[in-house]
């Protein structure tokens, strides 16, 4: 019900935002926003009815809400690993933003393999070098224009 309410809110916001636009610009977004609003209300009603119906602990809704644990991984470890994964995504993002793609991915790989994966130096150096080489090749052979790192670009 909460998700349906959220979608209904987004649809209403889209509708309200489009009110001041030219007729040609708003025709399609308004048509879709109204349809989305109606569908979200229907979903809300449907979910509310379903939540009132008696059900056991193994009902679909309960399963959907269950933590993302597997039989081998207890929920608390699953949650911790989730947090670590998200943190690493942010670390990689910061790395490429600050020091560019080539160095950022290579250093991110070294950090991940040493800190989280606890790999040996040989595998770490090999993979980091391969990553650096692949990104370098993309930039210099296929001419993909990677953004320069913020810190490395400062002296210029």
């Amino acid at each position, binding site marked *: 019900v909460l998700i349906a309410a959220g979608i209904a809110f987004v649809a209403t916001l889209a509708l309200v935002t489009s009110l001041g636009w030219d007729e040609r610009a708003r025709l399609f977004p308004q048509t879709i926003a109204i349809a989305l609003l109606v569908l979200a209300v229907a979903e809300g009603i449907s979910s509310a009815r379903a939540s009132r119906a008696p059900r056991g602990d193994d009902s*679909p809704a309960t399963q959907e809400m269950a933590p*993302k644990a597997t039989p081998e991984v207890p929920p608390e470890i699953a949650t911790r690993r989730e947090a670590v994964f998200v943190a690493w995504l942010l670390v990689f993002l910061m790395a490429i933003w600050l020091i560019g793609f080539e160095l950022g991915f290579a250093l991110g790989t070294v950090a991940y393999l040493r800190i989280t994966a606890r790999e040996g130096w040989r595998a770490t150096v090999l993979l980091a070098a391969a990553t650096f080489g692949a990104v370098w090749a*993309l930039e210099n052979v296929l001419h993909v224009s990677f953004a320069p790192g913020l810190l490395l670009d400062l002296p210029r």
Partner: protein
Amino acid sequence: VLEAFAAALGALFTWPTFGYLTAGLAIGFVVGILPGLGAPTAMALMLPFTFGIPPVDAFALLVAMLSVTTMVGDITAILVGVPGEVTAAALVLDGHPLAKKGEAGRALGAALMSSLVGAVIGGAALLALIPVVTPIVLAFGSPEFLLLTILGLTFVGSLGGGTPLRGLIAGAAGLLLATVGLDPQTGIQRYTYGMLNLWDGVGLVPVAVGLFAIPEMLDLAIKGTSISTTRTAVGGVTDGVRDTFRHWRLTAVSSVIGTFIGLIPGLGGPVAQFVVYGQAAQTAKDPSRFGKGAIEGVLAPSAAMNSKEAGNILTAVAFGVPSTVTMAILLGAFLIHGIAPGPAMLTRNLDVTMSLIAVLIVAHIIMAAFCFAFLKQIAKLTFVRAGLLMPLLITFVFIGAFAERNSLFDVLITLGFGLLGVGMVRFGWPRPPLVLGLVLGGLAENYLFISTSRYGFDWLTRPIVIVLIALTFASITFAVLRNRRPPLANEHSELKRT
């Protein structure tokens, strides 16, 4: 036509034409494996190199590259859950679960063989359709194309199986997402909230990669093991090949649907894959298997993805209407080489058209043979432990997200949609309709604008439009009625979550 085709096929195996074809295959293989760096990028990069070579050689290079990028995008989608091309996103749904179960070889074998069959059927359909296609395509105007996009969306929206309403909501959300950016008619900023990065809208690659790849990576990170923990079945490639012919009807129907979708301007791989996936799920005896590793969920999209290229080529050469970005670039190549697309491509320049079809088929056969030779080695990737794989996957996903528009903002979009994808999987919302809505949104708006400008609301009374409206309602009704049936055992399946 057949004589011209035989001559084109023979010419393909002469030097240097075959050399250009091989070069196209090699470049396409590298580019196709990386998400974001798709066929359009590769073709745009290689176009200047074709200026000084004869037209047939130039098209051997470009079309071989195009064919193979579609084919190899499947490999990463199946093995690591990261679609190498947006057009391979549907393969994540069932191909990757098969890899997790230790059946990567079978999934890859099925994907490659059905790709090959799809390309051959598409090529054959193209040959057969050349004399009759003109009146069919000309009978469709903007109103009919608009209804086709809506029909496709409702068809895939009802893919949620047990949750058709959620599928339709996801599809509508995708359509709304497509309106972000500058309005093509008036130039008004829509839903950009002053952000310059949103002026060009939301990119398809960052959204698709975020929605499909990040949840799989999170799953892998939580498990902490290799993608597959079953070490018994690295093989199974021949099983996959057999599956293609065991489900020959599905493969053939998906190929034909793919070819027809390829004929419609604007629709293309992203649409074809989900429409045939929906068709496969809707017509299966036990749809609850879909999303958990149903081989039919691999066969149908792979076949359609490759057969649709034939349809794309036909509209490009016969009408000069490019159905996709890659076809627009190919048309550019035609013009550079002094060839005007149009009816003459089916008469005076028939040799060029036939060489395109021949390249399409031969490129698939060569690449399938190459992949089959190394498939067992490729499938072993699923046994690499998560710790080693994760930084490579993160690199892969970030580069893919960035490369489409060279924008760091797109990496943020990928992360945002990754979060959304995780939530959608966890709370039982289907993801394909959202992607499809995003693909179709721009087209649907354009068709709606032209239809209302040209016909007012009278376009709603056109006969083909009425038939398509009826089909749309029938599709929704069918999904709703199916939802009301008593649940099958273990019906709460991944299908609901995909």
